[in-house]
């Protein structure tokens, strides 16, 4: 359906010389946008690339009129300040220009986003995915809204959990990013907290009243005993119900297979309801799978443009192949409520990845991050998390920028229907510390985040950054009254966990798979 708009636009652009965009609009566009009574000719914004006619956006503050050449520029300049957008040269040049852009964005009809992609349909497969997968029926309830009206609606009592779930396929990443730019931290929390996205493999993650943790037992040289020691420590502190996920130091099929077998043996021996993952490149995991490795979840880092994904060595078709391969194993279990776990993909993202790959097309990093979620939702993932502060201060400078970005990513992901977690983290050259992580961790808990990371002592000795600890997960569960995934909770209260705690006294016997 949406693809038709772009085709229509191309067809109509030849007639553009008539000067009046509205007069050449075809019936499709009328159905999608102009039927909305809110787009008369005299609205304060002037909008988009309607009918192939590029028009600028503007807003006045006092006597100063601010103009924004296109939707890309409008979105970038409306973005709350962050270093990556300055580095890319797309940020607002003053605080007043930023708020002018926010005013103009607030008045922009959502329908305009369907007609004016930030990266052209012809050159980017992520844009094509967004356009072709858009669900007009799901979009119908908000079709007449402006971005500002969407914010008001999301925060209103009208926006119930059920309505938000039904809306997700009708929202595009650009719409989600746009509305988040008009939201304060409490808005990002309040809206996200209404949304639940529940996924299953051997555990059920994302239920209300639950908080899961990825156990991240990395080791500088992938030493199996060292990794196993961290797994044991994490299990004994109740982490691992999202996934036991190892980042390998090298990218090697044999090592990947060895580590998968180690976790699988431990899981079988103590009947642990958990899934494992070795976060090697997707092609490495597929190769391991083909050689018979016990693969539960298949991981890949993804980004919001075709070119950035290419720099990661992936494409939509490769991810499709991985998804099918993972599904074919049928290793998920019957979860609480008798539902069989079928979500097999695990994706990580993070603002700034497209810029660092020089593949950002002049789009701000937060909008591109939301576009990565369109890639993720195509494959019904078990887990998606932004690795929010990992990329460094040239993209998110300090604790304030990291905290906001983490909440934006969580909100946008949830609005788009993703099972969002967050790697609450920072590097040593960012202006941030563990206090900032406590703030973001607690706010994400209030926002209903699906899972966080559990790293021994919050110190990842392989990736050299700081995240959250097993203790941090326990803290969040305690202060917010949350439990782990139901299957995992039952295990923690049962005999197998007791046996693990006893046999742990001789870890070397447990650690050799």
């Amino acid at each position, binding site marked *: 359906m949406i693809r038709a708009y772009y085709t229509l636009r191309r067809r109509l652009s030849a007639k553009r010389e008539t000067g009046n965009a509205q007069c050449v609009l075809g019936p499709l566009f009328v159905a999608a946008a102009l039927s909305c009574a809110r787009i008369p000719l005299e609205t304060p914004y002037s909008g988009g690339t309607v009918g192939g006619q590029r028009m600028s956006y503007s807003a006045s503050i006092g006597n100063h009129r601010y103009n924004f050449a296109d939707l890309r520029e409008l979105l970038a300049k409306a973005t709350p300040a962050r270093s990556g957008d300055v580095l890319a040269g797309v940020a607002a040049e003053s605080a007043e220009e930023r708020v002018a852009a926010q005013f103009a964005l607030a008045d922009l009809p959502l329908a305009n986003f369907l007609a004016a992609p930030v990266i052209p349909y012809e050159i980017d497969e992520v844009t094509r995915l967004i356009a072709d997968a858009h669900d007009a029926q799901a979009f119908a309830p908000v079709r007449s809204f402006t971005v500002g009206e969407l914010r008001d609606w999301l925060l209103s009592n009208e926006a119930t959990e059920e309505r938000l779930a039904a809306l997700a396929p009708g929202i595009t990443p650009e719409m989600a990013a746009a509305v988040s730019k008009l939201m304060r931290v409490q808005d990002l929390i309040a809206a996200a907290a209404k949304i639940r996205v529940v996924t299953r493999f051997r555990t059920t993650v994302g239920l209300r009243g639950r908080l899961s943790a990825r156990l991240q037992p990395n080791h500088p040289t992938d030493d199996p005993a060292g990794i196993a020691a961290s797994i044991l420590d994490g299990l004994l502190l109740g982490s691992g119900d999202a996934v036991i996920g190892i980042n390998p130091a090298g990218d090697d099929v044999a090592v990947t297979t060895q580590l998968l077998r180690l976790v699988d043996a431990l899981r079988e021996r103590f009947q642990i309801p958990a899934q494992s993952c070795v976060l090697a490149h997707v092609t490495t995991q597929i190769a391991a799978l083909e050689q018979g490795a016990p693969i539960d979840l298949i991981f890949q880092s993804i980004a919001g443009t075709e070119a950035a994904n290419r720099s990661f060595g992936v494409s939509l078709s490769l991810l499709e192949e991985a998804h099918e391969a993972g599904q074919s194993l049928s290793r998920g279990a019957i979860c609480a409520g008798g539902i069989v776990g079928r979500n097999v993909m695990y994706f990580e993202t993070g603002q700034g990845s497209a810029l660092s790959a020089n593949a950002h097309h002049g789009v701000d990093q937060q909008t591109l991050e939301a576009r990565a979620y369109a890639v993720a939702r195509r494959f019904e993932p078990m887990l998606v998390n932004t690795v929010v502060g990992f990329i460094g201060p040239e993209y998110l400078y300090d604790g304030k920028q990291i905290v906001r970005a983490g909440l934006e990513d969580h909100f946008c992901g949830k609005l788009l229907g993703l099972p969002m977690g967050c790697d609450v983290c920072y590097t040593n050259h960012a202006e941030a*510390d563990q206090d900032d992580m406590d703030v973001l961790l607690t706010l994400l808990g209030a926002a209903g985040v699906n899972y966080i990371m559990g790293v021994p002592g919050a110190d990842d000795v392989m990736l050299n950054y700081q995240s959250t600890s097993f203790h941090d997960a326990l803290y969040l569960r305690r202060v917010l009254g949350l439990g782990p995934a139901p299957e995992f909770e039952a295990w923690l209260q049962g005999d197998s966990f007791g046996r693990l705690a006893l046999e742990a006294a001789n870890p070397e016997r447990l650690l050799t798979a």
Partner: protein
Amino acid sequence: MSEIAYPEMLPALAAKLRALTPARVALGRTGVSQPTREQLAFQRSHAQARDAVHARMQTAALASEIEEITGREVLRLHSAATDRPCYLQRPDLGRTLDEAGRTRLTRLRPGGFDLAPVVVDGLSALAVERHAALLLRELLSRIEGWRIAPVCVVEQGRVAIGDVIGAALGAEIAVVLIGERPGLSSPDSLGAYVTWQPRPGRTDAERNCISNIRAEGLSYAVAADRLASLFLQARRCRLTGVALKLETAKSLEG
């Protein structure tokens, strides 16, 4: 729902787990929180890493140390990043020289050098102050007879500033010794990047890197051996980077 009762970890098990990994395992807990001692140990490590990131390189002292230890002339330069906050937010500026530095290099009448050693603070001045002079001595002793350019010591620089400097000096190979991003347990790790025919626009895929040079990591002797061997391979294949790795792998097989 009732909170789960987690078992206390016995000291004997804690010791065993700790012996298996450098990760912060078996920290114990008070309630569900980390005990004071572990919390302070973490803060100490983070403080050291932060101090390493923000320390200003003692350029004069380092320059005279390098002169003394290697017997080479030293040029002191500065990138276009004016200070640390600017450096951290503008990687592009850390890759270019400031006006004074550019002028200085163009006056040098370059050319004919086999190797341009470039010492850059990067993200840890501590790393270069501790290791650069000593590593250079080891390295230069392995390539006697090579025509070595004056050693450039650069403040607020990134790896690619070696391309600008190497090109201005007309060197065939640039080696950049640079402070790596401090980890929580490694505030003074040095990296070494080798680039064949350095010039602006070279990508990271066109360099070879040796990482983790520090007391607890790679020794000066081993690092110097590897660098000298990389220089020779680069000369033979007339390139560096991913392509050199492939060439080397092929010649090993062949």
